[in-house]
């Protein structure tokens, strides 16, 4: 290589296999060749299991390749891993913060581990604190920080010394849009002002779009690499914005489109649907009008996946449900009135009132620590409200008879089925816990196996299955007893774009059949799937209404907003400014 001066990482023909058991092995990387340049942001994107984390760990010198050569900062990763590690910083997906130590103690610990001198610390700490805005929280225990703050602290600990190359593995998973934006501002300024080289893996395409170079991985192979526009432009002529000519919701149109063979991808956007079509025209699709649209990186990626691997988003995800009489969509099934929840002096949820109707998809949106999960736990009867009333399917689940819980299904944020027993045993157990038995239980379990693609791993230990599979199983278990209302707490956190589309296709089928859905999410574009959303911050309800209404509410001010994410940030920041002004007065 003659251009090594400009290149931070050169990998060629990288192969890495892992033994799954004695007989089988999984090929995580299958002949990967790529480059990352100095002073640039390089993104690794691709669905779950593409090999992003494996590739980062190879670069970090934490594992050795089975085949191929890898040079990092002009060092050979196979023979000089220690020299590489002395010059890079790596932030894994779950950064090892010590939750019982304070912010400052965590920083000191990592500075000690990396042998950062006292003089260097004095110069470095104030900058890190300014960058991450953690200065006011120095004494707070890391375990008490919000998800976004934890990630920022993780980044600060990673940067206690000045690395030549920074590796970030999905740094924004489970982080709300505000914190996500802040994290990216930190990373961008490091690249622009200090010329740091950064490699980041992500499943958010808008993040990859900000990078200078994108490497698309799929099942251990490089599908494409280049500047983001070289990938998005593949979808030129195929991207459209679709409007229904019928009186149907964006979600209904999206579901209709994504089920079609001639549609590669469809997501609701701004009350309409962004679609990537196989053909460059849309004549064949009835009851909708199509306008050409500027392609996005996600459009390009979906097209690429479809062309090269035949992967189709949400294929077969629509679930079969028994026909029922048309639900009364006016019936109020969840009703909260002036709900307050305090933990000591801290008010987690403050005077919140809302209603949810039968068959609605209701989204709870808010930054980390906004009170979404607390609201959720109160609705499910897991936590008593300090004051106010909550009625779910006509009962307060905290005090109602146990049978009232028969009406709800609950999918927690963290995977919470039994990891040490098999998939089938988990389904057996939850069927039984909900009173299903005999032929009826078997029928429902077969239904779950079929509709959530669980059959091929029925006898596998649940804890050892990949995350995507666990998420499907958790949802299947919550639906066995055909609940009227399903609660899902951040069901798509950490899920790749394909899995998210699958998930929402299932939700659409459920809502069509009259199941009420209450869902929290960090992905603002997912709010577009909801019939109505509520935005919370610091325990207070800031906005409630259809996605269109919320966008309009945010746009009231000087600037118009196009996306839900912009609307969300505008609403939350406006409220925070008001709170600050009030505190100052």
């Amino acid at each position, binding site marked *: 290589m003659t251009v090594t001066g400009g290149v931070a990482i050169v990998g060629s023909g990288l192969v890495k296999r892992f033994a799954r058991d004695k007989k089988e092995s999984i090929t995580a990387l299958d002949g990967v060749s790529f480059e990352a340049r100095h002073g640039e942001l390089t993104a690794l994107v691709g669905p779950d299991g593409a090999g992003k984390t494996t590739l980062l760990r190879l670069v970090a010198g934490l594992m050795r390749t089975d085949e191929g050569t890898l040079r990092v900062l002009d060092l050979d990763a196979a023979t000089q891993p220690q020299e590489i590690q002395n010059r890079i910083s790596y932030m894994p997906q779950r950064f090892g913060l010590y939750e019982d130590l304070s912010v400052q103690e965590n920083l000191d610990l990592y500075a000690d581990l990396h042998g950062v001198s006292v003089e260097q610390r004095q110069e470095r700490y104030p900058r890190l604190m300014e960058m991450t805005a953690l200065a006011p929280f120095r004494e707070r225990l890391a375990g008490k920080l919000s998800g976004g703050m934890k990630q920022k602290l993780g980044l600060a600990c990673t940067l206690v010394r000045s690395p030549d190359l920074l590796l970030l593995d999905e740094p924004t998973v489970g982080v709300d849009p505000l914190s996500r934006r802040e994290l990216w501002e930190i990373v961008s300024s490091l690249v622009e002002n200090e010329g740091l080289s950064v490699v980041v893996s992500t499943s958010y395409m808008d993040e990859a779009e900000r990078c200078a170079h994108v490497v698309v991985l799929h099942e251990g192979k490089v599908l494409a690499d280049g500047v983001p526009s070289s990938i998005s432009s593949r979808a030129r002529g195929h991207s459209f914005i679709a409007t229904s000519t019928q009186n149907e919701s964006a979600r209904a149109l999206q579901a209709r489109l994504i089920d079609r063979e001639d549609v590669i991808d469809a997501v609701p956007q701004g009350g309409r649907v962004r679609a990537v079509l196989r053909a460059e025209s849309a004549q064949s699709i009835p009851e909708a009008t199509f306008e050409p649209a500027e392609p996005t990186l996600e459009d390009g990626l979906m097209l690429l996946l479809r062309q090269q691997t035949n992967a189709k988003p949400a294929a077969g995800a629509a679930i079969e449900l028994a026909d029922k009489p048309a639900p009364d969509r006016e019936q109020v099934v969840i009703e909260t009135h002036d709900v307050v929840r305090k933990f000591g002096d801290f008010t987690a949820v403050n005077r919140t009132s809302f209603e949810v109707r039968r068959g609605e998809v209701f989204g709870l949106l808010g930054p980390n620590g906004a009170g979404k999960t607390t609201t959720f*736990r109160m609705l499910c009867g897991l936590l008593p409200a300090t004051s106010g009333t909550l009625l779910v399917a006509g009962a307060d689940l905290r005090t109602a008879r146990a049978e009232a819980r*028969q009406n709800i299904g*609950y999918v927690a944020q963290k995977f919470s089925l039994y990891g040490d027993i098999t998939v089938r045993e988990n389904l057996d157990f939850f069927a039984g816990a909900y009173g299903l038995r005999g032929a009826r239980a078997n029928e429902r379990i077969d239904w779950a196996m079929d509709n959530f693609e669980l059959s091929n791993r029925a006898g596998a230990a649940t804890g050892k299955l990949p995350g995507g599979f666990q998420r499907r199983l958790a949802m299947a278990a919550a639906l066995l007893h055909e609940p009227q209302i399903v609660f899902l707490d951040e069901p798509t956190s950490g899920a790749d774009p394909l899995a998210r589309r699958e998930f929402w296709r299932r939700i659409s089928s459920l809502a069509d059949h009259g199941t009420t859905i209450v869902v929290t999410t960090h992905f603002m574009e997912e709010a577009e799937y909801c019939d109505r959303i509520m935005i919370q911050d610091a325990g207070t309800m800031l906005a409630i209404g259809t996605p269109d209404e919320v966008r309009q509410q945010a746009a009231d001010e000087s600037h118009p907003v196009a996306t839900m994410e912009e609307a969300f940030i505008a609403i939350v920041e406006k409220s925070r400014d008001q709170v600050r002004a009030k505190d100052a007065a």
Partner: protein
Amino acid sequence: MNATLHRILILIRKELIAVLKDPRSRIVLVLPIVLQSLLFGYAATFDLDKVAYALLDADRSGASSDFMARLDGSGVFHRVMNLNSASEIGDAISRKRALLVVHIPSDFERRILSGQGATVQAITDGRNSNTGGTAAAYVSAAVERFNADWRQSHDGLRSPLTIETRAWYNANLETRWNMIPSLIAALSMLQVLMLTALSVAREREQGTFDQLLVTPLRPTEIMVGKAVPSILIGLVQSSIILLLALFWFRIPFQGSLATLYLGLILFMSAAVGIGLALSAFSATMQQAMLYTFVLLMPMMLLSGLTSAISNMPTAMQYITLANPLRYAIEMVQRIYLEGAGVTLLFNDMWPLVVIASITLPTAVWLFRHRLV
């Protein structure tokens, strides 16, 4: 009622699958209990078959030789030294040359013959109180025999010899007979307590407990569903130790199996209640582990397993009243060795019922009301 029963059975089945599925955890439930029983049976025996002793015979009379002949002839005592003065006693003991020094005073024969009665002093190595105590007890046994013979041959009513030791005498000279039956309760409690203490805490830590609470399962049903598998596992472990006692150590069983298992079920319910309450109180498995360890040691010590409760300070004796193991050990020993029936054991059984009926409802309450 039917629905409740069905839900409980489903939970019991899940618990048993989770515990017994993994071959390693099956081994963990059987192997340690066998090893510990053997360990206690062989290593934790206080019987002595060779007591090294030193003799300080200040009298050197016919009576003193007569007494010493009994000691030496017992087959247990083995004289390693003859001392000449009291000043040598300290040296013999501290250098561990003898476990015991027998001191016969200079007026020994004169006092016996005059009917005043004499005293033999047994000085034991206090650093090892168990063996020392046993050795001293053996000396008093020899004194007893000497007295009995003396009364017979002299038609006297008074016993001429007394010994300066207050330790009690183990009539059958076999501590193993006391120890092994106690283990039927004590060893199985160790693992049952650990198992139950982790059961709810594990679910809480892994988030599955919330999932359980949103199902129609009621807290009481969860409690029963968690308690029954633990009790079953405890009974299996007790049975393993019982089999070892019967067929390996060959200790004859005097009582009825029905009484034994009734007692064990009561005991396991009390222990499981404590475990579940601890577990429901803990936020994490680590906390539950810690609480269990903190509790286990005093429960073992204050149970009468290794030291007699009647020898403890009064305050300690009151604390033992809250310890289910105390009742269980007494109960199992009496059933096993004496063949005691339910009516005789009533005083050991009702406290277990009281403990279980306090701890189990506490656990149920904590399931939903633990402060977050």
